[in-house]
């Protein structure tokens, strides 16, 4: 299955298609519609309807066990943006997303290029890089919680080199500029979570890039070699530009995973001291289901949804247009 990632915008053919499709509906066509109708209704209700309902809850006063759906305006949103914890969440999500995507892209491309060198034991290496994806984020969280525990393994190793890291228990924020209620900068503890997340998800970008590299015909490389290009030049001038659309896809998929991440952080570190590893997903869960602040929780979830939609909606629309 060759990935055709984000095909370029094409138009013009859609008119002809719709003219052809405006034929009369026969029994089978009606039946086919009846087949997918339950799914359409289910998604309309359980995705779109429930999002609308969450949006409504986020504008209500329902911040206790007893549902109170009286209109509160933007009160819950205003509360969040002034809230220390939510400000910390935004900062953490920003840096987590940034480093996570960079790590996955860099390691993914590097390993894919390595694996593409006609090496021996390729499938063994490939499986070693892929298998973490079959694990649950919970399992990953439990293992890495132990691995990066300041009192254990990896740290003993690093201490021998004079590095003494607190990993996810560090409360340091670099550089820690005061901004509104929080210290803005890179929370050191987030790095530990990025390592675990990247360990699990690198396989995805390796698979994507490798499929992209394999789709490039050998003749193109041959021709470049004939023209005297070095291997390095071939990659830089020919191969990397050709796999660039894959980068767009990987960035979008990884960004949406990182913006809604919950289980890994919940299992590995929790919110952390001073909320240095907290993310909106964890905050939403705790405030809604542990604290009964339903309206606040709904507001967090709507902000999460909007942040994901910024990436996903253009992606879906452009791939739709490219397909027809």
């Amino acid at each position: 299955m060759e990935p055709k990632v984000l095909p370029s915008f094409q138009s013009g053919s859609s008119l002809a298609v719709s003219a052809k499709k405006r034929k009369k509906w026969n029994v089978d066509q009606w039946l086919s519609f009846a087949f997918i109708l339950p799914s359409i209704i289910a998604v309309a209700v359980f995705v779109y309807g429930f999002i609308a309902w969450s949006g409504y809850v986020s504008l209500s006063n329902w911040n206790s066990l007893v549902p109170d759906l009286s209109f509160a305006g933007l009160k819950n949103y205003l509360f969040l943006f002034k809230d220390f914890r939510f400000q910390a969440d935004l900062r953490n999500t920003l840096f987590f997303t940034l480093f996570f995507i960079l790590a996955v892209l860099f390691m993914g491309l590097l390993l894919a290029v390595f694996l593409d060198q006609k090496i021996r034991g390729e499938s063994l290496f490939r499986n070693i890089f892929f298998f973490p994806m079959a694990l649950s984020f919970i399992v990953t969280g439990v293992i890495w919680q132990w691995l990066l525990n300041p009192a254990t393994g990896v740290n003993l190793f690093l201490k021998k080199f004079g590095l003494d890291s607190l990993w996810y228990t560090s409360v340091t924020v670099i550089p820690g500029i005061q901004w509104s209620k929080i210290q803005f900068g890179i929370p050191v503890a987030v790095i530990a979570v990025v390592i675990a997340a990247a360990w699990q998800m690198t396989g995805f970008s390796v698979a994507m890039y490798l499929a992209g590299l394999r789709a490039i015909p050998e003749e193109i490389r041959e021709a470049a070699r004939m023209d005297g290009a070095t291997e390095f030049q071939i990659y830089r001038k020919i191969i990397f530009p050709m796999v660039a659309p894959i980068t767009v896809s990987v960035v979008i998929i990884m960004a949406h995973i990182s913006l809604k991440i919950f289980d890994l952080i919940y299992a590995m570190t929790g919110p952390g001291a001073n909320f240095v590893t907290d993310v909106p997903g964890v905050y939403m869960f705790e405030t809604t289901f542990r604290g009964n602040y339903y309206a606040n929780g709904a507001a967090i979830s709507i902000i999460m949804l909007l942040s994901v939609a910024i990436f996903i909606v253009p992606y879906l629309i452009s791939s739709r247009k490219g397909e027809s």
Partner: protein
Amino acid sequence: MAIRTVSRTILYLLLIVLSLFYLMPVYVMLITSLKPLDQISLSEMWQLPQSLDLSNYQLAFEKLAPNLMNSIYLVIPATLLSALLGSLNGYVLSKWKFRGSDWIFTALLFGMFIPYQSILIPLIQFLREAGLYNTIPGLIFVHVVYGIPITTLMFRNFYASIPEEMIESAKIDGAGIFKIYQHIIIPLSITGFVVVGIWQFTNIWNEFLFAVTITTSSQQPIMVALQNLSGSQIVQWNVQMAGALLAALPTLLVYIFLGKFFVKGLLAGSVKG
């Protein structure tokens, strides 16, 4: 040629070092899970256990067994149902396209990217009303509904490779929508069902957010139980690691034996083509 040999050696060395990094967590998980408590000291973390001690597994299994069963009761029907539904949807949206069907498909797809937090509060209200809250059937229902986008996408892409001429000539021979599905599509769908089945199995087995919010104690699937195990301070690391391995084992085995299909699903799930 010398340069080539050197660079090949460096390439292999790098690959081996990186492989060791990716395997390290599994190595530590394994050896820790096999050690008795007095060997879980910091200085011995990387050392192999002095003797094989399976008591941690016994303990972890005792604690996780009921939840393991819950996961099995959840994952099998949920996977089958969502694969069937996906196949039907994929068939219609690839072979019985109508005006606007591509946009319906795109609108369906949006459902697989949303953060599920954004539907969770209404969903739980709904499940309470329907009497499905805190039940395995409730979780099955949730996974089937929210599995519609991804399974539809996978099957639609899969069926796109079945030539249109086959369908057209079947129609000319008088076959209707059911006959074509039964005699042409289904027999060609085996790989599709395997890919989608593995994908849904892995995702549903590993899923946590729905599991932790929709079920409590005795109804909880394995991942929630594992999280509770590691969340409690009483349970020791060696037991946690044994539990983590037990919880991961089904999906790991699926990956080891059917990894090719898993990766196919991975690529199909992220990409429209």
